[in-house]
Structure formats: C-alpha cells, structure tokens
C-alpha cells in the first residue's frame, strides 16, 4: 500500500511536465496555432511519418540483421563486432547529422571533388532519404542491442525441437527464434521511434520540417508557448497510438521459456564468400556510423585544440559525468519503485510518465520549470520565504531528465521484474524468507542486469542531452553538451568538435559496459533451486 502510494507520487511528479503540456488544450486555439495548422501541416505530418517509418524500418533491418549475424555465425572479428556495433550510441544524433552534412552535402568535400570531375547537380544530403539514413545510423544500436540479447537468451532446445519437426536451421531462426524475440525487438524499436519524434537537433541541421520543428517555431518564432504545447500533445497522442499498436502486436503470444537453463545456440562457422560478406557488412556499418565520425571529429579538434583546450574542460567533463550519474541513480530508483508497484498492470499515470522520451527536451524543460517555480512560489507563500529555493537548483534539471528518460530505466526493469513471478515469491515466503531477504537474494540478482541496462542507458543519454540541461542548469553548471551548443549556436562547428569528441570518448565507457551486459551469461538464478538455496543460506546464518 505504501509502495503503491510512493509509486503514484513519483509517477505523478515525473508525469507532471507532460500533464502541464496536455493542459494547454484548456485554452482555445490561438491564431498562431490556426496559422500553422492551415499552412503546411500536412507536409509536416507527412515528413514526420516518413521519418519515423523510415527510421523504424532501417533500424529494424540493420539491428536485427546485425544481431542475427553476430549471434548465429562465427567469422573473423565476430567477438569484436559483437560489442563494437553498439558504439554509435555514444555519438549524439545532432553531431552525426552535422558530420553527414559537412562531409556529404553540396558544399562538402565529396561533392566538391565530384564537381571537379564533371559531375555537378547531384543531390545533396539534405533530403528525406538523408535524414532517415542519419537517424538509422545513429539509432540502430538500440534495436541491435536488444535483439542481440534476445537471440542470445533463446535456447538451443527451441531450435532442436524445431529442427526435429522438420525445419532447417534457417527457417528455425525465422519461424521460432525471431518471433520469440519479438518483444525485445519491439521495445528497441519503440526507443527508436520515440527518439526520432523528439529529435530537434538533427532535423534542424537538415532543415527538415517535422512536428517537433513546428513546435519550436510556434514557441520561439511566433511566441506562442500555448501552440507549442498543443503540438506536443499531438506528439503524445501519436506516441500513445504507436504504443497501443505495439501492445496489440505483443499480446497474443507467450514468451517465457520453460527452460531451467537455456543453452545458447552454437554458432555456425562461415566459409568463403559468406564469411567475406559478413565481415564486410559489419565493418561497413561500423565505419559509417562510428569510425568515420570519430575521425572527422578528431581532425577538426586538432585545429582548435590549442585555442580552446584549457583547465575548464575538466569542469565541463566532471559536471557532465556527475549529472549523468545522479540522473542514472535517481531515475533507476524511481523506475524500480514504480515497477514494483505496477506489477499487476500499469496505471495510466505511469504510462504517461514514460512518454517523455518522445517529447523534445525543451518542452519538457518548460514543463519542469513551470512545475518547480510553482512549487517554489507555493512553498514561499506557505512559509513566508523570500525568493526562490528550488528553481535554479538541480531539482528542475533532475525532474526534466526523469520526465524525459524514465522509460529507458522503466522498460528493462519492468521486464526483469516480470521474470520474478508471484510463484517464486510465494515459494520463498513459504520457506521462511523475510521480505528483506527476498529482495536481497531473489530480486537483486534477477534485477541486476535490468538495473544496469537502465542505468547505463540513462547515463549515456544524459551525457548527450542538451535542451533540458541548457534551460534548467544552475549557474556555473556548464557541461560538455552545453559547450557544444554554445559553439554550434554561433555556427562554429569546428570548435564544437573538441567538446563533442570528449563527450563521445567518455560515453564510450558506459556504452561498452552496456554492450557487454548479458552478452554470454546464462540464466542461473530464478529457478526453484535458487530459491531453496537462498532460504537455506538464511537459516544457516
């Protein structure tokens, strides 16, 4: 009962910025909203849908195919690619977008050379295809990671059963293993869809009009926060719709394996042409999505290093790391409390609280600031305080981060919690384990992996986060992402390379940890044996 109340409070706090956004419909539509709806909204909607569908298809294809190749086959470099293919996650999407334009658009070196060879008038990067390509390259690691983990945890036995029923190993994969990992692939896909909807940086660089850019235009160019909030709520509705479709797609199937200890499938050694293709495929993707951008950033950094690198960088880096760590801890804790209380079904408030990932950071930041200043003013009038206490502290920041990134921690923790069935708990209790020991010896080991995944995902995303940090940070709290913004806002993309490469290099640590999570470990805990062992240990002590 206490758990449910706390969970409700936390969920409400996190959902508050979103609720504030939704409340914009209480006021009538102003002329800005009407103007934007009547001029070009259909183009904007079409652009948005194309981008989302394109990114979804692209990342699913890339992520699933790469995961399949690295888990089913053996080829030179496989163990390297297994974790390296997650690395693009360390690069912010807007940085990748900028590099793509700088290198491949009409004013870049590639086109210049092509024109020198006589090929002029070729299409540049700034097109629908271009932005879909960049989004796909930036976001496929979400699908790859989850698909890979899914494939690794399906058992040999399932394949053997399928083969004994007449399937070849290839059709066994497509008819048995792939459907079994569908929920994981879908949750990776959800992350991709939400990030794509929320993105503002990359689409601005491409000058590609989406719902999010319209939102910004309504607010900053046409001064109508109200219209911006209304457009955000359209985003929310869109996401709800997509989530509902996803849920329906998942519902009719059972995914738990009755395996006590699923053995991973042995990998098939590739020879000849297929070996070459596998290596080439993985290498090319890694090259485009990670190596080339890094090389570009490094080359730009060399020229600005002398001018810009100073002792302050330790501060920027330190603050980026500190904020990411704080957010990771807070958000994982919140997700855990919410997950625990919601095991019998998600309440609406919790579902709302996880939608923030689909909303652009700035609008959540505004919601966060409105909430925190409201609390401040209320507290001030209640206690007759002078001035603002919560505003300008880390409160609004953490609230903004929670509203935006809760889903990253909530999803892995929720699925980990699902594995702790009520039966296990009942068995444990009947054997005399106290609640505390149940948490310690059963929940903790089973949740560890989900918690780590959630924490690392939040950490990386907060490192890269820009708009919320910009808007809500206390004085003197400039981070690496803020530094990137300050240079890019002035069009000084070359100077932005230094903070960008620093951010990427330090994000590599959690990304590599993420990539190594559960890569080859077998499921041991959570079996009846473990429960008995745990209770025996308690009695013995």
């Amino acid at each position, binding site marked *: 009962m206490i758990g449910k109340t706390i969970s409700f409070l936390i969920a409400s706090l996190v959902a508050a910025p979103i609720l504030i956004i939704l409340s914009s419909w209480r006021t009538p539509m102003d002329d800005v909203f009407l103007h934007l709806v009547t001029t070009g909204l259909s183009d904007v909607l079409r652009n948005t849908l194309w981008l989302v569908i394109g990114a979804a298809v692209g990342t699913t294809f890339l992520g699933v195919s790469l995961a399949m190749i690295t888990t089913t086959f053996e080829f030179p470099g496989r163990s390297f690619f297994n974790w390296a293919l997650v690395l693009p996650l360390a690069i912010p999407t807007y940085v990748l977008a900028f590099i793509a334009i700088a290198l491949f658009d009409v004013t870049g070196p590639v086109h210049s050379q092509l*024109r020198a060879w006589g090929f002029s008038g070729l299409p540049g990067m700034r097109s629908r295809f271009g932005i879909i390509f960049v989004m796909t390259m930036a976001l496929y690691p979400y699908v790859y990671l989850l698909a890979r983990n899914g494939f690794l945890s399906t058992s040999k036995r399932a394949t053997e059963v399928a083969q004994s029923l007449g399937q070849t190993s290839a059709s066994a994969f497509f008819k048995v293993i792939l459907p079994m990992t569908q929920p994981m692939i879908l949750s990776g896909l959800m992350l991709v869809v939400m990030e794509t909807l929320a993105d503002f940086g990359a689409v601005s660089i491409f000058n590609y009009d989406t719902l999010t850019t319209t939102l910004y*235009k309504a607010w900053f160019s046409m001064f109508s926060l109200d219209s911006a909030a209304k457009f955000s709520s359209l985003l929310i509705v869109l996401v709800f719709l997509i989530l509902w479709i996803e849920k329906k797609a998942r519902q009719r199937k059972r995914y738990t394996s009755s395996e006590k200890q699923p053995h991973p499938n042995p990998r098939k050694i590739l020879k000849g042409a297929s070996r070459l293709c596998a290596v080439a495929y993985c290498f090319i993707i890694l090259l485009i999505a990670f190596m080339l951008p890094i090389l570009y950033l490094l080359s730009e950094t060399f020229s600005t290093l002398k001018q810009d690198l100073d002792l302050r960088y330790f501060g920027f880096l330190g603050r980026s790391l500190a904020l990411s760590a704080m957010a990771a801890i807070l958000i994982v804790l919140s997700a855990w409390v919410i997950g625990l209380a919601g095991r019998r079904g998600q309440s609406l408030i919790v579902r709302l609280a996880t939608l923030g990932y689909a909303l652009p950071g700035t609008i959540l*930041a505004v919601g966060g*600031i409105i909430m925190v200043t409201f609390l401040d003013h209320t507290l001030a009038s209640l206690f007759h305080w002078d001035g603002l*206490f919560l505003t300008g502290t880390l409160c609004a920041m953490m609230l903004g981060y929670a509203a935006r990134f809760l889903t990253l921690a909530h999803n892995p923790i929720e699925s980990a919690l699902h594995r702790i069935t009520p039966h296990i708990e009942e068995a444990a209790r009947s054997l005399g384990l106290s609640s505390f020991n149940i948490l310690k010896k059963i929940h903790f080991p089973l949740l560890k992996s989900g918690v780590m995944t959630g924490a690392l995902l939040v950490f990386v995303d907060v490192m890269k986060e820009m708009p919320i940090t*910009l808007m809500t*940070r206390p004085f003197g709290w400039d981070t690496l992402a803020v530094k990137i913004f300050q240079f890019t806002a002035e069009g000084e993309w070359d100077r932005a390379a230094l903070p960008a490469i620093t951010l990427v290099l330090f994000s590599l640590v959690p990304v590599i940890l993420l990539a190594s999570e559960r890569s080859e470990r077998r499921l041991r805990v959570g079996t009846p044996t473990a429960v008995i062992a745990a209770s025996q240990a308690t009695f013995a002590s």
Partner: protein
Amino acid sequence: MRFIVTLSILFLAVSPAFAEEITLYSARMEQLITPVFDAYTKSSGVKIKFITDKEGPLLQRLISEGADSPADIFMAVDAGMLWKAAEEKLLKPVSSPILSANIPSHLRDPKDQWFGLSVRARTIVFNTQKVNPSELSTYEALGDAQFQKRLCLRTSKKIYNISLVAMMIADLGMEQTEQVVSSWIKNLAVDVFSDDTQVMKAVSQGICDVGIVNTYYYGRLMAKHPDYPLALFWPNQKDRGAHVNISGAGVTRHTKHTKAAIAFLEWLSSEKVQNLFAEVNFEYPVNPKVKPYAKVAKWGTFKQDMINVGNAGKLQIDAVKLMDRVGYK
C-alpha cells in the same frame, strides 16, 4: 527524515553574495562575453554570474520565475527578442543620459527598456569571380530574372532572416515584401541551408553566385579562408540603407541591483569598451563616436536602415506567416 534533509541540502545551491554581483541571462554565447565580463570585474570589482541559452527558453525562464527571478540583465542577439522581452513586461525602463548619448535612437527602445550594444548587418555576399558589383543594387533586386538559380539563402527559421523580413515589412509594406520574398524563392539555386557559413561556402564554390548573410559570419569565414572568392555588398544605399540588427541588453523588471546593472550597460556602451565587445566577433560598435576596428572597417562604410530595430519584434509573427505563405522554408 534526516535522509530527506540531507538530500535537500544536496540539491539546494545556497550561495551567499559577498562581493557585489550581477546576474545575467544571455543569448550571446559564453565565448563572446567572458572576455568582456572579466574585463569589467577587473576594472570595477563587480562579479558577473550568468547563464546562456537561446532567447526563447531564457524568456520562458524569466516569465516562470516572475518577481523572484535572480536575473538583473537580459542580453540577446536579436532586436526582435529584446522587443518581445519588453512586451512581456520583463524589462524595466531605464533613464540614463549616458546610454541615450552613446546609443543612436534607432538602435534602442523608444521606451528605454533595451539598448543595442553592437551592430551587425545582414547584407549581400557575392562570388567575386562570377559577379560584378555593378550587377547588384538592392535586396529586392535579388528576385530579378538575372539572378535566376543564382541565389542561396539560409532557412526562414533563423531569427536573423525573420528580422530581415520584418524590417522589410516595416519599410515596404506587407504586399511588396511578399512579392520580394516570393521572387527570392523562385531564384534559389538549391534548397535553403541551415546556416550562413554553408551559404557562403556554396557561393564560394559556385553553386550559387549571391547570398544574404550576417557580416560577422563573413568575417569569421574569411579569417579562416582568406582565399575564398567572396566579398560583401551593401544594398539599398540609394534608398533606405542596409538592414542592421543588434546584440543588446536590458535591465530586468524585478532586478534587485538596478544601479549596478545600469552601470554595467553604461560601461559596455562607453567608448573604450565598445570595440572590446564587438571585436571578439567581427561586429560594429553601436556608439557613433567609436570607429569600427580595422578588420571590420576594411569592408567599407555603409548607410544603415534608420528605422527602429524594435520593428523586427513587432512584425516578427507577420514575417513568419509571410514566409510560410510564400513557401520559404
């Protein structure tokens, strides 16, 4: 309970002010203002605390914080945004004979709520190898048939273009401006770019022959690549003059340090400081008694449009609607 208290202390940043201190919310980026702020602290002892962000979120923060806002000064890089801040009653009218003397009236608020501190022109850039300056005359002429497929522009979403169009509406009226902008779009060589540097690169590479950019982006690019075949042209010299915009500031309505804030603005407008403020960014001084520094002076003198820059704010929404109507992305 203790846990909650400790947690709250962890979250609350309590900073007692010992030296005199003013707080600034700035849309002018950190690398451009720190040298100036440091110089002020050195000469006056007053410390400056600041936060940078785009104008929009800063305005929102000021609105939410209300009367308890710690901000003393709001600094922006566009006149329209300063006008908006005044509209939202976020700025306080300041009567300072020094500021009135140092800043021409078309570059500050008629009601003395905001003041320009440096000037930038949004002007025509052209490829010296493909365009004779005699071909160029006005902003409007860029829409003529001779420039078909020879024009490159930056996106309409950037405030600098919005202000340019807004000022054109103020000068020429809605209908004529709509025709002009529409004719520009017909002359575009490629899709609009997301920043001025890309526009200039396109012009220098021959993708197009003319573009419209802010003078300081030109300065920066030419400093890095002096060999680029680019030059500036001052349009409308025979009529209203070239379009200018300001980087400026105003004192916030709820400041607790009015005198210190005004003193700082006066210092920024003073003769000896004007070039320090402008120099970091290839801008022009706002104080008419100050000569532009060498790097900027070599672009030549020009007549600027003398109507109040605040019109950029008043007509901002109209400008955006106009650009939407003609399909200027």
